[in-house]
Structures are given as C-alpha cells and as structure tokens.
C-alpha cells in the first residue's frame, strides 16, 4: 500500500496456544483518525504491543512508513521513530509536577549526558505552556501529577504524547472513567490533533466513537471483522452478532 504510515499484514501472535492476533491486516495513513473497537479479548491491546515493539509477532509484517521493520524495534526505538502510546490506566509520573511531566516528554535528546547537563530552554518553556493550555491544565502547572483527578491525568498523558510530537498516537481507552463532559471534550481534542498526527483510538464507549466521527475498524478474535464508517459497520450482520448476539 503506497503512502501508508503504518502497515500490518498477516500478523499473528499466540500466547500459550491462545491466538490473540490472527492474520491481522491494517493500514493507517498519515494524519488519519481511526477508531478500533471490539469486545474484550479481541486483540486490541496486543495489537498496540506489537506496533510499539513491546511484543514480537509470531509471523507477519509490520512496517513503518513502508520501510522500517517494527518487528525488530523495541519500545524505546519505536518511541524515537515517532510512535506515542497512551495506556489504558493513566500513566503519569506522580511525584513530578504537571509541567515537569510535560518537560520530560518534550521532543529532544534522550541520552544520559544530555539530560545531566541540559537546561530548559525558553523555547521548551513556551511549548510547555502551549500544551498546558491545550489540555486545560494551566492552573495545575506546579501541582504534583499524583494529585490530579483521573480525567486530568488522562489529559496530562495525552499532553505528554503531544509533547513527543509523534507521527502516530496510539490511544488506549482514553474515555475510561471520565464524566460525559470530559468524554466529549476528549473526543474534540483528538479530532483537533488528527491531521497533524495520525491517531488510532481503541475504545469501548460507542458514544465516544460516534463523537470521533471517523473510520472504524472492528476487531474480533484477533482479526478485522469489518471496516468503514460507524454507520456501515453497525449495519454489518456479523458485527451485530458479536456485539449484541450474546
């Protein structure tokens, strides 16, 4: 597929006989917003583990920009290539302040020497302010990340992803544990981000997916069951059976 940012073809992965991913193929274009839905155990998290180099697939091809083989990269390498990942459970650095969390995430040298002697530049400070405004945490700038509410932590983590300025954001259930208003605000934020970055969102909440208003991929038992607009996949008989038939 030409021009793809992320290309998965025939990917399979088994854990002790259980086929978590079964001949999965998926293409994400640059700047695209994509929702991935599917029941528990459909292989959504394993897919993200494979893309970020946390898990190696048993077989299949995973290509970044058509050239880089992601099955040989580890988490650090995929992060440096430009893949950012948000975990399902908010994962921020609790005993650092909100601003310090963003500072660590900012694009820049990641070596031991660079961080030992590095100082926060004016440009970096400005970028931190911009991100604080974007995720609406300006007031909490100097508060410890651990003292934030669940929803604020989710946003801080999204802010940290943006600070990395990745070309692809993998976002695992961002709306989990959020109020309705926060959920809608998050969908809005992700829509704003898309275009500049490709965003793949794994989600359960159908209201949220509707609010994203993007192409949807339905996973089931490690395979793609259907793909297309939300209206299109909702009309698919197999999808209805998987989601509603039990």
């Amino acid at each position, binding site marked *: 597929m030409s021009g793809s940012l992320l290309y998965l073809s025939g990917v399979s992965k088994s854990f002790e006989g259980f086929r978590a991913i079964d001949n999965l193929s998926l293409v994400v274009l640059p700047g695209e917003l994509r929702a991935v839905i599917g029941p528990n155990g459909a292989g959504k998290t394993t897919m993200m583990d494979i893309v970020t180099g946390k898990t190696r697939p048993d077989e299949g091809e995973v290509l970044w920009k058509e050239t880089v083989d992601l099955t040989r990269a580890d*988490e650090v390498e995929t992060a440096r290539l430009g893949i950012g990942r948000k975990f399902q459970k908010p994962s921020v*650095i609790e005993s650092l302040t909100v601003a310090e969390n963003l*500072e*660590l995430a900012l694009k820049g040298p*990641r070596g031991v020497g660079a*961080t030992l002697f590095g100082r926060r530049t004016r440009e970096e400070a400005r970028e931190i302010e911009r991100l604080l405004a974007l995720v609406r945490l300006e007031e909490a700038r100097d508060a410890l990340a651990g003292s934030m509410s669940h929803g604020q932590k989710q946003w801080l983590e999204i802010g940290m992803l943006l600070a*990395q300025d990745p070309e692809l954001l993998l976002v695992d259930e961002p709306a989990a544990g959020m109020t309705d208003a926060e959920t809608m605000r998050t969908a809005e934020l992700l829509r704003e981000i898309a275009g500049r970055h490709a965003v793949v969102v794994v989600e359960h909440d159908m209201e949220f997916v509707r609010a994203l208003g993007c192409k949807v991929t339905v996973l089931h038992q490690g395979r793609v069951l259907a793909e297309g607009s939300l209206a299109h996949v909702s009309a698919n008989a197999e999808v209805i059976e998987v989601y509603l038939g039990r």
Partner: protein
Amino acid sequence: MARIIDRRMAIFLAGLFILTVGLPVASSAAAGELAPAYLVSLVGKYLCYALLAVALDLVWGLCGILSLGHGAFFALGGYAMGMHLMRQIGPRGVYGDPVLPDFMVFLNWQELPWFWLGFDSFWFAALMAMAAPGLLAFVFGWFAFRSRVSGVYLSIITQAMTYALMLAFFRNEMGFGGNNGLTDFKEILGLDLTAASTRTGLFAASALALAGGLLIARWIAASKLGRVLVAIRDAEERARFLGYRVEHYKLFVFAVSAVMAGVAGALYVPQVGIINPGEFSPANSIEIVIWVALGGRGTLVGAALGAMLVALAKTLLTAWLPELWLFALGGLFVLVTLWLPRGVLGALEDGLGRLRPARAAAPEEARA
C-alpha cells in the same frame, strides 16, 4: 546553585562544618581535651557510613533500585585502600619481608600476585578504590538492567552478589588475607596512623567526601536526569515509551553510587584499622537500607543523618547492653515504618513546619 543547595542541604553542611572544625579543636591538648581523642576516629567512621547511606539513597530513593548489596562496593573500596596500607608496612611486618605482606609469607607465597602490583602507589590505590566498585556495578548492572531485572528480584541478586564476594574473600587462595583480612597498618602517605594529627586529617577528609558526595548526589537529583530517574522509579514503562533508555539511566546512577560507596570504604579502613570479609556480609548491606529508611528515603541529607544516628545508637547500646542491639535496630525500623513514613528528617521538618506559623504570628501580636 540555589537549586542544588536548598535549605535542608545548607543546614546540614553548616552543621557538618561546625562538627569538622569543632571536634578536633575540642579534643586537642590546647582545649584541655574537652572531648576524648578517640571521638575523632569514631565520628570519622560515622561520616563514612553517612556517605555510604547517601550512595544508597541515590539509587534507592531517587531511582527505586533497592540494592541489598551496597556493602560490597563499600568493602571493595576498603580493600583497595587496605592493600595500599599493607604495602606501606614494608619490612616492619612480623616476618620482616620487604615486599610480601605477612599473610603471604605465612602462606609460603614466593612473590606478589599480579593484582597486588601498583598498590604501593597511594594514587593508584585511590583510583582502584573507585574503579573496582564502579566496574563491578557497571558489569553487574549491565546484565541485570538489560534483562529488565527489577524490584525484589534485583534486591535478591544484589544480596547474592555480596554474599558470593564474602565467600570468595574468605578463601586464602584469593590473596586478600582470607578470614583475617588486612590489618596491622602503620602509616598513610608517610604519616603515622596512630598520630592524632593523621586521625584528624582522615576525619576532615571524610567530612569533605561526605559534603562532596551530597553535592554530587543533589546535583544529579536536581538535573533533568534526576527527573528521568524519578520517572523510572514511578512509571518505568512510561519512561521507556517516552523514548528514554531506562537501562542506561539505571546503569549510570548505579555505577556513580558504587563509586561513592567505594570512596566511603577507602576512608573507613584507615580509621578503623582493619578490613575483613565480614564487611561483605549481607546483614551489613541491609543495615544501610535501615539507615536510609530511618533518616528519610529520597532526601539525601536524611540518609546521611539516619546513618549517623543509627551508628551513634549502635555505639552506645553495644557498650551498655550488647545483646539488645539487634532488637533495638529491628524495633527502630518497625517504629519508623509505622509512624515516620518520611523518616526522621520528614518528621523533623513536619514538626518545624507546625511551629513556624505560630512563630510568624508572634511578631504581629508584638506590633499590636
């Protein structure tokens, strides 16, 4: 600079300075020996423990690596210095051999083993006191961190490391004096080790090393690298997905900490006059953890304070009620864990914090 020397550090360094100047003066003949002379070496020993505690706090408090083998790095530094002091004895040993230390003559060795070469030079020995622990930490850490061994598993293998070293150093064939270790030292840098002036010099050097160790540790903690270490402690996975090579950071801080522990050991040995394999014993390493927890993990200054307080309590208690010491140590640890989660330093600062508003209100009333 202000970021490195915060109030807590400033107060501690000031106290350390007063102690370093005050104690030798008080124990001198001019002051009528207000303090007994042995106190200088005793407190000098405490200062070495304090530096060792700071070294552990750097990896444990800042980066969450609970090493139960830091006693090994301390002992290696001690052995490097001990080897130099053995070479300094020269023909004054019991057997009078100009080159071989007594235990080698006793074992019928004909020549100095290769790894003893160079230790006649003080500077070589000083370098080795840092290089040997640093290198061990580097190699050990390289394998452990790369294989992502962490948490309690890492603690256990560090414990195994120091235990293995203890067994190895107990063997006469190793060439480090076996069971008896290295002792009977005469002089350092041409100065008589029993002279009050030499003891004062070693004491001052220990104080300087402690101050230097604290400042280096604090410099690391206050840098961006320090924040990466905290990120690794709090959310290792997150740090990795942000693109930080976690194992490189751990390796760096582990090696720096081991070097610091080695320096502490090298200063400790001439002040106590002996180094033997007992220093590698796992219990010693666990005691360091207690110092740090008791003083206040992650505060650096607290770790130094904790080491000195426990060492003082040990000196007093083992003199009065020797059989009770281990119970007291265990009891202290339980008390601190239950009631002082932030250690003695945390409790002190909380106490002062509660006093401060009252004091701030007082002048207001006076004016009215």
